[in-house]
């Protein structure tokens, strides 16, 4: 098919994720500020990332963002419980707009470098993850660049899986609930189990 895949990723929630923190000087017109190339299971993928940071109050815009996305990073700050609580509404909206229970989603607990200010116990985040059909949960630090790449890779892997399922005639919507496709070869490469998805650095 295509030599390179391109996926749209939308970052929602606590604005402070700022995936392009590694860009020394942010220039929004430069492609690097919103495009990211990553390798997922040996495949090169280009991600176009729409980070809605700063525009949370334009609630009417959300749908526009959500329509754009194929995968979503729902970000909260581990230092703020309310930021976690806001995610459920976002997810519901995504599911409604996408009309799909199994939209690729990764829950991101950001600011893991501020452990001393932690207000969201990991158990809470795990709980949310379980309620959300075991959506993977990562704790990241945009500042330390910890786990940032992993988040994108996980999300991208979900999109690819979804993509290939979708192109099959006999797609089973309940597939994800049954288990994370352990028969796949590329999953074997990953020691991490989708059932125990929290990764903390």
């Amino acid at each position, binding site marked *: 098919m295509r030599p390179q895949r391109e996926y749209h990723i939308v970052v929602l929630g606590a604005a*402070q994720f700022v995936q392009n923190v590694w860009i020394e000087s942010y220039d929004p017109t430069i492609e690097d500020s919103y495009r990211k190339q990553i390798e997922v299971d040996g495949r090169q993928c280009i991600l176009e990332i729409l980070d809605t940071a700063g525009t949370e109050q334009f609630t009417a815009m959300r*749908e526009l963002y959500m329509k754009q996305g194929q995968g979503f990073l729902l970000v909260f700050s581990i230092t703020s419980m309310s930021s976690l609580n806001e995610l459920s509404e976002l997810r519901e909206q995504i599911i409604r707009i996408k009309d799909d229970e199994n939209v690729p989603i990764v829950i991101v607990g950001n600011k893991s470098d501020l452990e001393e200010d932690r207000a969201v116990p990991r158990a809470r985040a795990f709980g949310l993850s379980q309620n959300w059909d075991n959506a993977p949960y990562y704790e990241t630090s945009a500042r330390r660049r910890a786990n940032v790449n992993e988040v994108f890779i996980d999300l991208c892997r979900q999109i690819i899986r979804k993509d290939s399922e979708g192109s099959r005639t006999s797609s089973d919507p309940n597939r994800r609930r049954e288990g994370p496709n352990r028969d796949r070869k590329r999953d074997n490469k990953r020691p991490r189990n989708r059932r125990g998805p929290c990764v903390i650095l």
Partner: protein
Amino acid sequence: MEQSEPPRPVFHNYLRAFYPFHPAGNVSPSTVTLPLDQGDIILVHSVHTNGWADGTLLDSGNRGWLPTNYCEAYDQMPMRPLLKALTDFWDIIRGGCGSSLKDFGNQDLMRGPIAGVRFLLEKSECLTRESPLVRRFDGLRRIRKALLSDLSSLVKTAKKFQEVANGTPSEDEVEGILDEMLLKAFKIVTRGVRFLDVWNEEVGLSRTIAELESNEPRDQYDMPPTPASESFSCETEHPERNESRMMESRMESRMESRMMESPQMSRSRMDMSRASMRTESLDHPPRPVSVATKRVSVSHRMSFSGPSASIRAQNLASERLGTTYDAFLGVLGSFIGLHMQSRSSTELVVTTQQAVQSCRALLNVVESVCEHDTQRSVLLDQARESMCEKLSELVHAARDVFCPAQSSDEDLVFMPDEGKRLVDAATDCVRAAGNCLARARLVLEQIGDIELDPENTETELEQKPQERQEISLRLPPPPLQIPSTTYSPPTPALTDATTPSSFQSHITNSPANLSALSSLPNSAILPTHLENMASFSSTDSGYPESHAKSDMTESFGRGVTSNGSSFTYNRHARDSEMSGVSQTSTRATSPDIGGSFQGSFHGPSLKESVSHSTLAEENEETEAHLLEKTYAHELIYKEGSVMGGSLRALIEKLTAHQSTPDALFVSTFYLTFRLFATPLEFAEALAERFEYIGDTPHAAAPVRLRVYNIFKGWLESHWRHDRDNIALDFILHFARTRLVVDLPTAGKRLIELGEKVSAVHGPVVPRLVSSIGKTNTSIASYIHPDTPLPPPVLGKKETNLLKSWKNNEASLSILDFDPLELARQLTIKESRIFCSILPEELLDTEWTRKSGSLAVNVRAMSTLSTDLAHLVADSILYLEEPKKRATTIKHWVKTANRCLELNNYDSLMAIICSLNLSMISRLKKTWDIVSAKTKSTLENLRSIVDVSRNYAVLRQRLQNHVPPCLPFVGTYLTDLTFVDHGNQSLRTLSIDESKMAVINFDKHMKTARIISELQRFQIPYRLTEVPELQAWLQNELVRVRSNGEITAQTFYRRSLVLEPREASRSGNTLQSQSSDYNHSLLDNAKDKFDFLSWTNQSKAKSVPTHG
């Protein structure tokens, strides 16, 4: 010890050749090699992984490739600001000639070299001509004088350039002067290096000897040179290399044994990797350019590094033990390596001193462990004493090596015995230290780890700041890391037997060649010896002669160089700029740089060159003039603009006398200073500037006036009562006691202003919002004030309808009004809020604050935008008939189109957003009726507000837009958020050994730039307001908003009621529609669609959760 910085690959900006490199034979024409003499300083542009570096030789201005294993990093602390200034200078001149004109229009860049020279002289205690050192040492005095005359010459050229640049210079003229300036700057640096060499020889030597003798090795930053004979220590094998290999294995075995002993194996592993990385990163300021690191050879050492260390207890004794021991090993390793194959006196001096220092650091830690050990472990005491012994043996050995070099003038013979003794002593020291460490660890295991006072090891050094900085000097890159097995440049490498032998032939061949050798800038050759050498060759062998004689060897390399430069001309953009210089400045054609300067390095010709220099006879006044007090070295430049700096350095820049400050710089200050300083600190820093400029009489008047102007501007138009009032008393006091004395009128005016500010609560001078921080004057296209406003498109019918609505007699719908008028009134409404956004609302993500946000207008913008979107949805969804809904959609599309015509992107965005909502877009029956024309208009509008590629289309449109215009505020908010969260607020500047955290001014400049971009559009529209229509619109918006949070869900339910899902077909409907929309949204990337196909397919079977 600093560990907060994550280890980064180090790029050395400057190298110094410790070994001559004269490529002979047929080097391919594509290789531009740069011949090197020992002691040459090279500005490095990039380093290839194979070990070849692209660099410019400061001596000649030639550029080419050179083998890095012939060189070592040059990063002497007193030279740092000067080196940094040269790098900045280069980046400006070579970075882009277009901008350089502007940058040189003001004299700012002269400040860097001036500050650098000042720093060097200050650190060497030679700031004034009257200082004891200058009086005592003739050589020092001369080179100091020459240095200052070089500087003065550069400043003069810069002034000349300023004059030329202000006229209409021809490009050649500009280029010529720029080249001249660059070469002069090179010259200053080389002269500075030479100065430091001489200083080391004359002053550092005697001091260190004195200190060694008192057995209290206090750290001065430099130490005596070794016997000058190292250039004669020609051996066919290079012991340094062997030694380093030996040392490496020694270290490794030691490390292994340590790991075995240590219960904290992983930790010591980590220590090791950290230590080795630190040796890389500490001493040398990392360069923000992403070039390959020089030392490829360390890779095996790096591989020890586990996952990046997070928070570590740095002050634990065990940690400290490990790090100091590692540092000690590193230093001793380099010490041993150096003494087996000496390079330059300076290097040797520094290493010896570092060796002693690192020993002491280790001993300090061990001692504190001892203190904590109540039982006083005998073994540890013994080990410690033994280490002390070995250390003193090392010190004595060092002294014995150094002393003869000073006393016996004729003695040029390398003393292998002494060298061996030194190495033995050092090896013993390493052994004793290992023993000591093991014992200390043992004790720690017994008594438990202890926390050490962070300053513990450094307290005794604290009296002198420069000594404290020396602490980190303990970690120079040890030779273990220089040329190792994995590191093999394709030249005759150091191991190559041909190099030394050819070198030897130089010596034996003829006296002429010998004199050529002596003219190498070999800093290790003491003046006394030089006299000797000179007489060796011929009676009056000034530089030019010896040069002529050695031409045979030299011309070879040089010829290649200039040929090559023209070759590079075609290949590299950056090269091409330089090649102009290289062609004109090879030694043969420009004796000024090559000749006189080169000559000045060495004994007899030193005098000549100084006497050549007419500028050398500058008087004291000029010196003071040149060396004005400045903090310019605390600024970080990149491509000519200030990236960061300490508050005082930034203030200095703000009030520079040579140039009018850049408007954006000033507005950034006013706008953002509260983010990096308290108002009081800001005021105090300004007052300090007012004071210290007094030392520089010729600049005092303009600078003080500027300080006043900054105060004035602050009080007049940038005063924020809520934040700044705490500084008012200080400002008034300053105005009354200081300002009035020097500038009476200004003082009075400032007092008046201050009193006014304390009395009034609003702005003292009426504040035109859109003028704040505005950097460009691109205002709306001029319209004569008498031009009538366009009349409202409002017929009698509409007016009457509005009247009856007011009396509650009729209900209105948007269909009752012309789309143009609707768009106009919406624009007026939004524009009013937009124009009242204050810059401070946009700082520090103020608008996202959950409660008590001061960003009222920004919040009002987002509220209005959301309300408008809801109003659109509401007006469509509460119509029962599909046909009416279709008509309303058409009406909104028309209105949106009118908004576009009015450049009201904010309303356009809201309307399109709303029409795009799934509850609208899913209404298939409705959309079937919407005309193709409306649909295509909608498509067009959608493509404008497309969010993909980070609003590329919208941004493109706004770029050169002429106001009036209402941009979509969201993009600015996103950008501001990114800048705020994506950039650290501090930058690290390594000027001295200590790293200095300075304000990341670039972040604030970026913020200010975005804000000023927004402010550019804060110009009201010339439109007629229709109050009745405004009232109705407002009422509608409020009505929709009052539905509150549940609005979206209500709408969705409403949508489902209007056109219920069709179990099997709805998916297709949705699909066709969403693909419709996605067509516009994603049409630049068609292949995204297969994602929609799965949406459809999986959706068809999934159970809807809502509805």
